[in-house]
C-alpha cells in the first residue's frame, strides 16, 4: 500500500476480465489508444462495449480511435476513505466524462481525475485521457485537466 498516493485510486484489478465485446477496448488501451465501438447502422457510440446498439438494436460495430479528450459532465470529491487502501488517497476526484467525438450519453466514462487540485475541479472542465498501465494486460483509463 506504500505506493498509494493522494488523488490516484488504486486499480484493484490486474486484468480487465474482458469478453468478446470489451476485449478490443482493452487491447487498444495497452497501446495507449482510446478505441470505442460505433454502430455501423446508426453511428451511435456505446460504452461499455456490448452486443447491441441501444438506439437501433444493430450488432455490428466499427472500432473508432477517439482523440481522448472530453468534458466533465459531473463529479464528486471523495473525502472519506471507504477502504483502508484509500486512507492516503483521499481526497480524490471521481467524474463522469463525455468524450469528444461521441454523442455523449451512452458513451460516457466514469473515471478518476488525477494530477488536479480537487478543490478546483468544475463541471464543464476539459480533460484528456492518461493511461496507467498497471499490469501486462490492463491499462487503467484516468483523465487529467487540460
Amino acid at each position, binding site marked *: 500500500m506504500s505506493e498509494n498516493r493522494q488523488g490516484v*485510486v488504486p*486499480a*484493484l*484489478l490486474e486484468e*480487465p*476480465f*474482458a*469478453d468478446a*465485446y*470489451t476485449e478490443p477496448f*482493452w487491447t487498444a488501451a495497452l497501446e495507449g489508444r482510446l478505441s470505442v465501438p460505433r454502430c455501423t447502422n446508426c453511428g451511435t457510440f456505446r*460504452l*461499455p462495449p456490448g452486443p447491441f446498439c*441501444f438506439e437501433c438494436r444493430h450488432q455490428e460495430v466499427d472500432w473508432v480511435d477517439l482523440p481522448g479528450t472530453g468534458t466533465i*459532465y*459531473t*463529479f*464528486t*470529491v*471523495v*473525502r*472519506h476513505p*471507504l*477502504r483502508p487502501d484509500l486512507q492516503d*488517497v483521499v481526497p*480524490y*476526484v*471521481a*467524474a*463522469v466524462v463525455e468524450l469528444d467525438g461521441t454523442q*455523449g*450519453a*451512452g*458513451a*460516457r*466514462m*466514469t*473515471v*478518476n481525475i488525477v494530477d488536479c487540485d480537487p478543490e478546483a475541479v468544475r*463541471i464543464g472542465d476539459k480533460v484528456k485521457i492518461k493511461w496507467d498501465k498497471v499490469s501486462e494486460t*490492463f491499462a*487503467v*483509463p*484516468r483523465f487529467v485537466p487540460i
Partner: protein
Amino acid sequence: MRYPNSSKPGRGAKRAVQDKTAIAGVGATPYYRRGESLPQTEQELACKAILNALEDAGLTTDDLDGFAIYSGSVDPAQIGSMLGVPEIRFAAGLTSGGGGAAGALGLAASAIVTGQAEVVVTLLTLQQAARRLGGTQVSGRRGGGGGGGGNPYGAGGVPPSMAFQVTSGAIAPGHSFSLLTQRHMHLYGTKREHLAEVVISQRNNAMTRPTAFKRDPLTVDDYFNARMISDPLCVLDYTQENDGAVALITTSAERARDLRHPPVYITASTHGGMGRWGSAIFGYFQMPDEYFASSGHRPVARRLYDMAGLGPKDIDVALLYDHFSPLVIMQLEDYGFCGIGEGGPFVADGNIRYGSGSIPVNTHGGHLSEAYIIGMTHMREAVEQLRGQAVNQVRGAEVALVTGGPAGLPVSGTILRR
C-alpha cells in the same frame, strides 16, 4: 420529453386495482443500530415483524398465504417453514433493491385482485452485521445494494463491465448520488442550503418520535460544520444504517373492513422507469441528459397519478425514500409538487415542513433521522398517518404518497387513502 403515452395501462389498472385492496396490519421489531440485533437471526426478525403485523390485523399465520416482497429480503420458503404457514399461494418479488419498496404493495394488490392469494405480507428484514448494504466494491467485486446480477445460476466472478467502473473511485451508492446531485446543482442552482433544509426538517420530525435514533436538534451551522463525505454530500445527507424488520399485511378491501383497524386502501401502485434509466447509479451513468439529474421516478409518477385519478395537489403527506437528502428534492420535482429544477427553492420556502408546509414530507424523520429499513419505515408511517395514529399526525390526512428508490430500475410509488 419523450415519455411513452402511459394513460392506457394506468386506466386499465385503475379499474382493476383502485381501492380493491387494503393494508390491514403493520408490525415491526424494534429498530437497532447496525449489528446490534444479534444474536437474533435475520429470519427471526422477519418472523417477529410478520407475527406482529398479523396480530395487528387480527389475523394469524393460518390466514397468511402470500409474499409480495422486494430487494430479495427473505426467502418465503424459509419463512413459510419456520412459521408453519399452512399453504403459500403467492411468492414473488420486485427485482433490484430498495427501489421496489412501495411497488411491492402493488404486487400484493395484484395477487389479491386476481384471486391468487388472500392475505399477503410485504416486508423487509435487515441485519447488517455480516454484510453492509450498498457496500463498496472491494477486490473487484460488488457489495450488496441491489446492483448485482442476482442470478444464482450465474458463473460468478468479475463481470466484464467491472473494469469500466471500479477504477473510477465512485465505489459506493453515496458517491453515485453525489454525481447526480452535483449535476442537479449545476443545471438548476440547487444549493447545499437546500439539502440542509431537507435534513433539518426531517430531524425536527424525528425529535418527537420514540423510534428515531437521531433526535438532537440540528441547526444550519451544525449542518455546515458536519464532515464532508463526497462533495456535495456531508455525513448528514447520508442515511443511517440499521437493523430491524417491518411487515405489512394486505388483503381485500372487503375483508379488511371486518378487521381490527380501519382499512388503508391501496389506491394505486406503479413501478419501473425509463429503460435507459437502467441500473442508473449502479455504475452506469449513461442516462439521457433530459433525466440524468432526476430521481428516475418521473414516468412512474405519471402512471401513478393516472391510475389513482389524483394529482400532487390531492396528496396530504408524502413519505419519500430518503437514503440521501438531495433525492427528496428530486422526487418532489418528479412527483409534480414543484417544477423540474425548482425543488431547492421549493424546500427553502418551507413547503415540506410538518405543521406549516404545503406538503409535509417524511413526518417520521425518514431514513435520515428515524431509521433505515429500506423504505418500510415510510410505509409504516403512511399507515399510521391514515389511521390517524401518527406521532406527527397531519390533521385530516386522507391521501398519502409513499415511494421506493431512487435507485436502479425499478423505482416505485404507491398512493394510499383512508
